[in-house]
């Protein structure tokens, strides 16, 4: 018990302020709905969202929607970010490869990937594959760009050390290029994760019948206001949790960063 008290005291002042501010905003929202300052037909209170989420989670198919969304998103994210990592590191290392691929990257990178959805469906058909391919395309580029930047951020001195000690190309890759570019590359993974969630939801709003985005769209079409809020809250929670998990993974695989 005293241990817990001690821990509470160690929490920073700014953290307390953040918690209090969030609690205040939620409280104001709750009050605004309960005291009828706003139209409760369109604005639903936080407590209602929580109870509705729990209810739908228990009885309805909310869990199934979340599962579908997560699977699509993770598959798409991996299918995009892993090639992005490999090609990005290679492009960062080899000037020739960069010269070859730069024109393609410069054209496709700024294009909003959702604009490619009709074309993708035309080519691969309907079903899961166009959604996953779209997410993969979205996740690919931020990882690629950050991996190139990551390799270029490595101080030349480390390549000199590797060369001076006779490191093979393989050793140079595993001991210099991969770990040296990782901090910058991970920022790309974080961006890619955000884009993956965005594209998953957009694709589901547009063409899917399952998944949290599809549930959101159906709730709008049938005007089930509570469900709209539940879907949005779940999407927000997914974003938060995934970012938090990536943060933990990042700290595990980059233990040499000074900011710890």
């Amino acid at each position: 018990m005293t241990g817990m008290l001690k821990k509470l005291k160690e929490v920073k002042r700014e953290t307390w302020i953040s918690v209090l501010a969030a609690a205040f905003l939620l409280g104001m929202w709750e009050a605004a709905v309960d005291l009828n300052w706003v139209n409760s037909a369109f604005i639903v209170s936080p407590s209602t969202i929580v109870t509705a989420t729990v209810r739908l989670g228990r009885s309805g198919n909310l869990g199934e929607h979340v599962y579908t969304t997560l699977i699509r998103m993770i598959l798409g994210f991996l299918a995009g970010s892993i090639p992005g990592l490999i090609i990005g590191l290679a492009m960062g290392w080899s000037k020739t490869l960069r010269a070859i691929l730069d024109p393609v990257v410069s054209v496709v990178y700024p294009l909003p990937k959702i604009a490619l959805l009709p074309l993708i469906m035309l080519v691969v058909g309907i079903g899961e594959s166009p959604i996953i391919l779209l997410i993969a395309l979205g996740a690919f580029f931020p990882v690629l760009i950050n991996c190139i930047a990551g390799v270029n951020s490595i101080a030349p001195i480390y390549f000199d050390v590797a060369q001076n000690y006779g490191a093979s190309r393989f050793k140079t890759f595993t001991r210099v290029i991969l770990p040296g570019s990782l901090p910058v590359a991970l920022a790309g993974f974080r961006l890619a994760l955000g884009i993956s969630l965005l594209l998953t939801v957009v694709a589901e709003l547009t063409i899917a019948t399952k998944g949290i985005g599809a549930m959101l769209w159906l709730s709008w079409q049938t005007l089930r206001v509570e469900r709209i809020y539940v879907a949005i809250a779940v999407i927000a929670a997914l974003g938060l949790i995934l970012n938090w998990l990536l943060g933990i993974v990042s700290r595990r695989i980059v233990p040499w960063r000074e900011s710890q």
Partner: protein
Amino acid sequence: MKIDCRQISKRFQTKNGIIHALSNISFKTNEQEFLCILGPSGCGKTTLLRIIAGILQPTEGKVIYEGVKDNNKPATALVFQEHGVFPWINVIDNVCFGLETQKISRKDRYGMAMPLIEKMHLAGFTKNYPHQLSSGMKQRVGLARAFVSGAEILLMDEPFASLDAQMRVILQEELLNIQREYRKSVIYITHDIEEAITLADRIILMTARPGQIKQEINVNLSRPRNVNGEHASEFISMRNEIWRQIKEEVDKTTAPLS
């Protein structure tokens, strides 16, 4: 093993024309010699060291590694100014990097590195990352890596320049001790006259750019050497003489154009 530099010249092509960094440098190291290359900043010392290390190619002349015994081992090992140790690799694996590139098993390389790690007061930090160490400890890692690598000639580019004065003296002593014990030759670059006299068996004094050899000085004072030691007066007169010569070179580069 000896290094034989034969008429090395180096020119760089830059946006503002050709920079003539080194001109006609020839010298040869002796076995287990501590050789200091001393010169004003911008005289091409680092360029020369990088050429000896094989990272840069000379425009003219060549470097001959005489009496290479084992082709698997690196001929030379560089110790850099700072940031030479990999920030993403822990202390022990940084020290063992030169053995890792020779495909020596982890167990064997740790075994080979441990005596030196203990000698350099790094034993309690083997699993730490460089950012958790002081700059003096970091530089010990860089030194240990070079000594463990099996290279017979160690090339050092002002390794102690960023350390505070006390740490520099401590590390200079440690460096001399392990150099004797491990029987290595050292080519050591510095712009610090006292450091050169403290460490060197022989000093090669360089001119301002384009860097040429101005003079070779054998330092025959007994060790330990310092301004307060037994040979204080010789030490000081040598320092003053070298300073006069370096001043000449510095004045050349800062003299108004006529």
